[in-house]
């Protein structure tokens, strides 16, 4: 019998792919956001509105993770940006190798983007553990999901630099204590940015667009070889 002491990260293969992606996104000045939420909280709807608003000013692209159907990527293409569906065949999250493969297969269409929008599989738990080479994670929580969720699913709210509270137009119809939710998020992640939006009415969406444009400008400014939009 032989005993060998090692210290190897279980997710080393994912971490190595994520490092490669991050280096390549740094070189092209591409801002990458990883959207994570439960199913039906409005990730695709937020991205459709984002595509329509920003596509004239920024070169956008999307990757959509789902267990089945290419419906989400089709919705983003209908909104006017290139997008590719990644089917996980049952897995509850995207991993960095799937991002690598999808970008390689799309070639020119998804290379040299200003902003890459990654929509993870609808799930508040598993996607939290997988680095996709993104600049930051964005957690979405719709007001219909209940105001106790940040403390019930703490890992994602602790790790997401930005939380977007969606479907704000429904606030008058549901018992959702906005202040309590913001306080829970702050208790888990004191530096988190919290936005309250409705993609349907446009309420608060300017803040979301401004955040993406500012973060893209910041990333782009660090790359001398890339021409940044003014």
């Amino acid at each position, binding site marked *: 019998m032989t005993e060998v002491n090692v210290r190897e*990260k279980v997710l080393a293969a994912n971490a190595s792919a994520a490092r490669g992606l991050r280096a390549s996104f740094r070189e092209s000045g591409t801002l990458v956001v990883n959207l994570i939420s439960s199913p039906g909280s409005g990730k695709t709807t937020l991205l459709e509105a984002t595509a329509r608003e920003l596509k004239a000013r920024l070169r956008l692209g999307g990757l959509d993770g789902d267990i089945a159907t290419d419906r989400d990527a089709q919705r983003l293409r209908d909104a006017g940006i290139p997008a590719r569906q990644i089917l996980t065949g049952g897995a509850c999250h995207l991993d960095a190798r799937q991002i690598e493969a999808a970008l390689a297969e799309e070639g020119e269409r998804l290379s040299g983007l200003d902003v890459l929008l990654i929509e993870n599989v609808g799930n508040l738990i598993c996607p939290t553990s997988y680095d996709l080479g993104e600049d930051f994670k964005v957690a979405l929580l719709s007001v219909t999901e209940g105001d106790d969720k940040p403390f019930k699913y703490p*890992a994602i709210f602790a790790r997401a630099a930005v939380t977007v509270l969606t479907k704000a137009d429904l606030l008058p119809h549901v018992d959702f204590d906005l202040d309590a939710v913001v306080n829970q998020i702050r208790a888990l992640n004191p530096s988190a940015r919290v936005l309250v939006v409705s993609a349907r009415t446009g309420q608060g969406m300017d803040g979301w667009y401004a955040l993406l444009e500012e973060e893209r400008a910041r990333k782009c400014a660090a790359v001398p070889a890339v021409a940044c939009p003014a």
Partner: protein
Amino acid sequence: MHETGLAIEIHRIARAVADERGGGPLESVTVAVGDLAAVEPTLLEFAWRAVVEGTSDAGAGLLVEWERARQDCASCGEIVERAPGSWLRLCPRCGEPLRVSGGDALDVLRVVFGDGAAASERGAA
């Protein structure tokens, strides 16, 4: 069930460690799991048994060593009154943001395996 994906990776890493040394079936694998790694140990062990079943490593044990996270407040020092694995990041005494160290480990620490086919043949000769 991302524990299944983790169990597959643990098996792949452990198998590679044994194969590089000409080793045989795995006896046990020890992993470090941080209490902020978002991993449920009973689910991980269940997934592990399912992953090794039907392979030459069937019956190999998975041992989990916990790694605790530490929370420190710049003014109040180490925060010890919270439950291990707490995600709360404001000091319970003064309300200031806390600094967190450790607790995110998810590492293969130790692999124990039996003799490989080559070693058994040498033993028989």
